């Protein structure tokens, strides 16, 4: 069973899972063409 400390860690991780880092967090600010990832159809070119 998870120790108390690990249960706390899991709870904190689960909370931060709701706001994962975004690729734009590590990039220069792009005011003109901001990075806006979104799901696109699988038949579109992805890369």
């Amino acid at each position, binding site marked *: 069973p998870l120790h108390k400390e690990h249960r706390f860690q899991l709870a904190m991780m689960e909370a931060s899972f709701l706001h994962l880092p975004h690729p734009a967090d590590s990039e220069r600010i792009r005011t003109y063409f901001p990075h*806006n*990832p979104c799901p696109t159809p699988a038949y*579109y*070119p992805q*890369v």
Partner: protein
Amino acid sequence: MVMDQFGMVGLLTFIRAAETDPNLVALAPGIDLTTLGLNLNSPGNLYSTFQSPWADAPCRPQDIDYHVPSEYLTSIFIRDKLAQIRLNRYQEDLLFFLFYLNGGDVLQLAAAAELYSRDWRYHKEERVWLTRVPGVEPVSRAAVYERSTYFFFDVNNWRKVQKEFHLEYDKLEERPHCPIVKGYN
């Protein structure tokens, strides 16, 4: 035989449990690592285009920042003078450029929507854009298909190419839905 979890019976029990419990699958039999969005056969290195541990694709070229001479960084001088992005003002060439260079981005959907409104259609199987050639009637037509000559956009040679084609209507994408994104420039 060893009857606890450390023998073959233990392994078998785990395999059987993993068949019905998806939580167990990740560790055994594990994940197909070729589906994680990394080109493991790449002759070059992967780290220089590694986008993020949560991304299914590598960086796009435009997302990789480099230290360039500060003279190149003109954004601060011109950004207030740049026009708003309005896709309906741009020629097809630029729309295709935006579509192909912004995979997995809202801009790709927006470019697709604009191409659709200009009567281009995306063929889901052939994965190519096509449109009717003006003035050319279909050679044959039925409820579910037609045969005619179309303009295809050849992305490898970056030009429109005329070709006769048997077109099944259900293979064409419907109008793309582009999420409204405020704050584009």
